[in-house]
């Protein structure tokens, strides 16, 4: 098991092929290889570590249950990102339904205040933790379709082709969506002076 984990030269596709033949060590190697990547993807999408961990757990359970659904025509990485992305979007929808109740319990003053107070204090953004928080809040405010592309492209640093495969949208759409997402994010963060993280 540990041997497989420490062999980066074995491709993902080879690992999933072995797992499809009931090699559980290959499954563990996939988990070891992808758990942190997927966690970061889900965390940046949802903004909550525990929810993100649950999404990643569920992703690996789906992989376990549906290992034969994977076909070698696609890259394994895009396949597993697609599973995690769909689960994260579902979680976001559930959360919105839950939030309808909580926001309706709030007064108008509460609704207005949220992030803007912090964004207004542009000169006081001094440490990296706060910068990260502000960037995360700006990401959270993006519509999900823009949020996904910017996380995959600019945080996970995947290629446009990979992003297109994961989201199942054409390359041209990925590019224009990334551009619009960057513009939106830049507009939200325009008053912030970014110190190094």
């Amino acid at each position, binding site marked *: 098991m540990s041997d497989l984990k420490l062999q980066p030269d074995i491709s993902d596709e080879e690992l999933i092929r072995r797992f499809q033949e009931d090699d559980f060590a290959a499954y563990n190697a996939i*988990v070891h290889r992808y*758990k*942190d990547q997927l*966690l*970061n993807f889900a*965390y*940046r999408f949802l903004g909550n*570590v*525990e*929810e993100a*961990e*649950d999404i*990643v*757990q569920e992703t*690996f*359970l789906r992989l*376990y*249950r549906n290992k034969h659904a994977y076909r070698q025509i696609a890259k394994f990485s895009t396949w597993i990102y697609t599973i995690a992305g769909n689960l994260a979007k579902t979680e976001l929808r559930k959360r919105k339904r839950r939030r309808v109740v909580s926001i309706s319990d709030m007064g108008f003053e509460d609704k207005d205040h949220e992030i803007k107070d912090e964004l207004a204090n542009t000169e006081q953004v001094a440490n*990296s933790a706060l*910068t*990260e928080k502000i*960037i995360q809040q700006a990401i959270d405010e993006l519509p999900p379709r823009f949020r996904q592309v*910017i996380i995959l492209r*600019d*945080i996970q*640093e995947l290629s446009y082709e990979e992003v297109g495969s994961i989201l199942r949208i054409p390359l041209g759409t990925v*590019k*224009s969506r*990334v*551009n619009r997402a*960057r*513009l939106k*994010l*830049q507009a939200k*963060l*325009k008053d912030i002076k*970014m110190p*190094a*993280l």
Partner: protein
Amino acid sequence: MKNCDHYTTLFSDYIDGDLDDRARSSLRAHLAACPACAQRLNAMQAVRGSLAQLPHIKTSESFDLLLQARLRREMRQAPRRRPFPLFELNWRVPAYAAAALCLVFFGALLQRRSYSSFIAKSSDSVAMDTVRRTDLAAIEPGYLVFVELDTVNNLYRIINYGGIDNVNSLQDFRRALAQQDDNRTRTGLPNLRTAPQNRSVTMRTRQDMPQLRQAEFIF
């Protein structure tokens, strides 16, 4: 002359180095004449740089433990979900049977222990070591075991145990542990992120019987 809206659609390709020579020259000419677009492009580049530098987080230490537990449950449920007909009988059948027998045996073992008492050494730490080394040594990963130590009469017994398989998410797991906080001395909730495995996570003293200590083990 093309307007600013047109040029902003080229920003990403420009940053990524994907513009052809003609489009790049045209954009550069526009940027030289339009400070607003130039500033916007600089800001976009800065934001992109900050995104790439965001810190990467790692899964918690309990992540693998919980995933393994959920997989074990998945494996146990798999035959129920898809009962295989006779013509599919193969080596898996005896394997499933052996696994089921092991589970029954293991469950019965713990059940029997849950009503037994064992003689232990006098101090808590010695008793705990004895528990770990002997009676609990055979417990497979994925169980929470609650042990009561009678420090006066030098006895201990397993008072309860539970499979962590019975939780659906990390949040459930933590919530379930938090709810066990009824009569625990306030030494803090067990922290699964930092708790070393195969060690007692917490000790508690019973209010009504101070000579008794209760300990939780996570396997």
